């Protein structure tokens, strides 16, 4: 079973079979507008939870993407190099940014569940 968590910085992470896939939420993609560039992390890079993992730019703004969990980058979504607009089309699916091998799965306690994230978004309106 896949579990999905969110950060207050609008990243999502799905954990399945010990692999964490990471991206930005549909809400974040919508807020950014047309996404024009994704700075993918290097495969092999290690990050700590909530450190800068990647960068994303839209016509309107440039933002950092933070690592929802600590770990090592094992794969990146190279399709985003030429077609970053995939993030607008499917932010929580085909628009994934990177895969991470988590070093401490208990860190999910610092993340929001889907229901908590939806509640958090309501508070932002």
């Amino acid at each position, binding site marked *: 079973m896949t579990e999905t968590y969110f950060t207050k910085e609008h990243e999502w992470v799905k954990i399945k079979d010990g692999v964490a896939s990471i991206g930005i939420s549909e809400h974040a993609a919508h807020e950014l*507008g*047309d996404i*024009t*560039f994704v*700075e993918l992390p290097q495969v092999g890079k290690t990050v700590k939870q909530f450190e*800068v993992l990647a*960068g994303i*730019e839209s*016509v*309107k703004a*440039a933002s950092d993407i933070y690592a929802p969990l600590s770990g090592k980058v094992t794969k990146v979504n190279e399709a985003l190099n030429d077609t*970053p*607009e995939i993030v607008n089309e499917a932010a929580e699916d085909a628009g994934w940014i990177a895969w991470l091998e988590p070093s401490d799965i208990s860190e999910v306690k610092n993340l929001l569940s889907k229901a908590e994230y939806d509640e958090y978004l309501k508070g932002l309106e």
Partner: protein
Amino acid sequence: MESLRNTPLLSRHQQMKALLAPFGGWNMPIQYEGIIAEHKWCREKASLFDICHMGEFLFQGDIEASGLEDVFTFSVKSIPVGRSRYGFLLNENGGIIDDLIVFRLAEDAVMIVVNAATIDNDFSVIQSRLKPGGVFSNTSADTGKLDIQGPLSRDVLVQAFGPEIGKIPYFKFIRMNILGVEAIVSRTGYTGELGYEIFLPAQKVVELWDLLLGDERVKPAGLGARDVLRLEVGYSLYGSDIDEVTTPLEAGLGAFVNFDKQFVGREALLKQQQTGLTKAKAAFQVSSRRAPRHHYEICSEGAAVGTVTSGVFSPMLGCGVGIGFVKPAVATVGAPLTIRHDNVSMEATVVELPFYKGGSLRS
């Protein structure tokens, strides 16, 4: 702080679920369906822009006797009736108070079209430079302005209002009856595409908006797309690229300054020509899809040499493009630059404007 002003089209923008944001003191549509989709539509079809926020002044009287000839960097009296001219209102130091267009309506009448944020200041500056005798008025509140821009804009207007519009050359205009009122249809714009600016009484703007959007070749575009469109062809944005501490010479816009006549700021510009520039405009193309942005630092060989004033991802070029002001020595075509901001760094090369050369502007 003054409250934001709305154009007559607010309800239309809201109906279309436009994203509205403050611009120059106005609550303006930034985007409808999306900046890139709107940009593409304008480059390929025809886009309609609500530009009612911009200012319009009328001068009626003897132009020679009024002193109007000495107010701007270009000659007003030599503009033929039915033509318009772009240039600047400068301060004594040669800094740009505004960039604007003067339309010669008649032998004894001109319309001056200015930026939204500068309306009040422009009006008082111009008024202070005029001699008594003529009638100078701010007609901004009563004047509506819609821009229709894009390669199909001529076909759309000809179909809607007749063949006369199809014959207007670039930087010429006609006065004609539209929807039962007198309008000015000008072959000018801010996109690099074939296009028109239509001035008409504010109370008719909604009707014209609805009429033009009834043509399936026309879609609305917001200020977001407008900014991408103008930057791709290298047009300056007042308040970002040019301002009161930037001269037309520094901004590479000396072509719009006529030194054969008097104007406020002339002495300062002549002096600047002699002593040389301390900053110069540079246009640059980034080696990736990353966009340079306003206030990013420009570096050359490791040293800071200037600041980005406008930057964007160019959908037409598929890379970041920007303009900024740098030490004149590095403002040379082909020179390599690095654009920096926090942990972001991008390589760029100085290029000639326009970035995008395929526009239908003069077709």
